[in-house]
């Protein structure tokens, strides 16, 4: 046992030394995450502001001008052009000059003052970007309800219609994008660093020919796997902690839950990536191949993480796959602890899933490593196991063996050809 630990430690030291020799790589592994988060966090914090809006005012009254002015005063929309017709405005939208169009029809002000009628304003949003269209439409809705309130005044509540909604946002009262985007970036950066470092480990040794040297050392397979995993785990956790400090101090995002819990749940997340990475690096012949696999896996994880599109009701197979996506579970944990202040009692499900995925990927990597270090070792192993199963099946239940006759014939033929040759 003590020898084992010593061997693992020795290999870990060797990995650290190797990383330390490549100064540019080391700088990128340690400072890259901070720099990237600083840069992108600042940008993503902006949210959607000042979307260019075209106005088609077919009424040209005081009331319509007031509506337009209110739209311009919102944070989200900024009037950049007045169009004569809807066709003209649509042309601008096609070239991307405006993101939304507000059309105020003739008769707007008469309908507005008539208590029995409802004035309507049309808003057309650029649907080729779904974020833009959602934001623009919500802003316009907001202006409309504001005007309704102004006209009816506090005394005659009836003018607001029979039902109104009062909104209140928990955990993020101003509905800022930044906390959501920055937590997603943190998860993705930790993910990519751990995955890349782990995925190149064996592929690099193989390509440089040093894998043969490792083989003749007294290292056992488990030693090899753990020794390679330790540096990645350390880098992943160091990056995580540094980025946490940056997020709390620089971006001023509250940490409402326990940091310890977050750290504890980050460990299985990083281990899951080490498992994937080790698996990738064992099956790839070259580093280029490993990189392509890393990239493909990373894209899938991003897709399932629910950042681009909230991953909601997915049918059958997709849902099952999405449960294996560790980024998705990790983001639930991260946001739950940081922003919602949830404890383990509410987060046991994603926490357990993370641990399960970590165990699963490490087990896969271990099975693959046990088969041997050659890229085709596993195929040979599987083929051998399949032949053994086949033989056992045929020996135990001869009448049920479908290929029995053919096998006999083939064996006979082989035997015959060997004899004659």
């Amino acid at each position, binding site marked *: 046992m003590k020898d084992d630990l010593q061997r693992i430690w020795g290999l870990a030291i060797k990995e650290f030394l190797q990383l330390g020799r490549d100064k540019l790589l080391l700088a990128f592994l340690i400072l890259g995450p901070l720099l990237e988060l600083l840069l*992108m966090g600042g940008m993503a914090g*902006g949210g959607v502001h000042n979307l260019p809006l075209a106005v088609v005012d077919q009424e040209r009254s005081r009331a319509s001008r007031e509506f337009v002015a209110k739209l311009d005063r919102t944070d989200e929309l900024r009037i950049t052009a007045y169009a004569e017709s809807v066709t003209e405005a649509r042309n601008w939208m096609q070239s991307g000059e405006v993101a939304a169009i507000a059309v105020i029809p003739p008769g707007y002000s008469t309908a507005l003052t008539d208590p029995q009628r409802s004035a309507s304003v049309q808003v057309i949003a650029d649907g080729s970007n779904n974020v833009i269209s959602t934001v623009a439409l919500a802003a316009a809705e907001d202006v*409309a309800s504001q005007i309704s309130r102004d006209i009816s005044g506090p005394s005659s509540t009836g*003018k607001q219609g029979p039902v109104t909604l009062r909104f209140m946002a928990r955990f993020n009262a101003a509905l800022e994008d930044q906390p959501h985007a920055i937590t997603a970036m943190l998860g993705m950066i930790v993910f990519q660093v751990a995955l890349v470092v782990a995925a*190149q480990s064996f592929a690099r040794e193989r390509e440089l020919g040093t894998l043969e040297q490792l083989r003749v050392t007294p290292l056992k397979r488990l030693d090899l796997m753990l020794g390679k995993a330790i540096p990645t785990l350390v880098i992943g956790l160091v990056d995580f902690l540094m980025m946490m400090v940056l997020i709390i101090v620089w971006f001023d995002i509250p940490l409402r839950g326990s940091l310890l819990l977050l750290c504890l749940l980050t460990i299985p997340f990083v281990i899951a990536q080490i498992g994937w990475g080790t698996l990738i690096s064992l099956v790839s012949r070259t580093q280029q191949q490993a990189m392509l696999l890393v990239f493909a896996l990373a894209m899938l994880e991003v897709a399932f993480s629910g*950042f681009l599109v909230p991953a909601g009701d997915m049918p059958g197979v997709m849902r099952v796959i999405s449960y294996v996506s560790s980024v998705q579970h990790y983001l639930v944990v991260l946001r739950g602890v940081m922003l919602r202040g949830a404890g383990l009692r509410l987060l046991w499900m994603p926490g357990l899933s993370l641990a399960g995925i970590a165990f699963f990927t490490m087990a896969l990597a271990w099975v693959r490593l046990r088969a041997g270090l050659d890229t085709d070792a596993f195929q040979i192993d599987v083929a051998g196991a399949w032949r053994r199963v086949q033989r056992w099946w045929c020996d135990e239940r001869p009448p049920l063996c479908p290929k029995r006759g053919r096998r006999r014939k083939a064996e006979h033929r082989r035997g015959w050809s060997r004899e004659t040759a």
Partner: protein
Amino acid sequence: MVFLSPALVLIALSLVFTSGSTRIELAIWDQDLTALSRRFVATLGNDGDFSIKHVAGRDEIERSLKGRHVDAAVVIPSGFADTAQSGETASVQVVLDGVDTLVAGEAIGSLLGHAGDFGIQLSKEYRVPPPPVQVKSNSAYLPKTADQDSMVSGLIPIVFSLPVIAAALALARERERGTLEALVATPVRGLEYLGGKLVAYVTASLAGLLPVWLTASLLFGVPFRGNPILFVVLTASFLLASVGLAIVIGNLVQSQQAATVISLFIFFVPAFFLSGLTDPIDTTEVASTVISYLMPSTHFVAISRALLLKGASLIQLWRPSLMLLGLSVGWMAVAILTFKKRVTG
């Protein structure tokens, strides 16, 4: 792998986005429990925007929001029916989970729409005045499958970063293995070598456009409203700029591991966050604008969406096209400079 990987990744990514609509999980605390309040809840539930779960009490709402079991909670106060029928305004409280702003925004929009329809229906039935102004909204170009088309066309630039990163690694590999020195000794000149690499990777990636195109149009039904030749030309320009940037990375690093890490930092995360794929680029901040304009994918996301979904012409797209052209010339120049330095220095 360089040829087919973009299409395969596009299939996988797009399958995620096309698989079913997202429903907003809604908790409802109905304190009124009248026929009208039940009708209001039914209006919310009837077109599949929301999946509804009944709760009772503030604590349960708080717990459901904290554990992310619901996205929003609606509290219908007691006396809701009486107020609404008397011609006064009944006020319903909505508590949102503000963390995912996109979902919160969708919930707000959808709830406002449903409540507005419900209010107009009621005002007709009970002869009470309707709200003075309402907004009739629609999204241009994309009637129903907006999210899918917009995502698939926006993802095309991102899937092409796979072959581009392969180019960065190809250069780093020669360095790592020491075969670059051997090449320098041959009569192949620096620019010829660089040109060879560039042509090989750009052509291979461009060939990959065909499977991507087929995937997008046949499998996901993304419309193609623009000029196909223009699209191919602009894709080639995008690939030139991206491979140029990749070669710069390949020239600067010592090992393939470093090349992979740096490429991921430059091509992967920013491609999602900075390219305007989800959030439009905020032009108020100078640093962010400059950096996102230096990334080829920023311009190509805009071009891809405008060409595929809106059928824009070159005249309408002159700005991103010119930027892309400038970037391909610029990054190529930097690639040549760094390469010369690397071979001689």
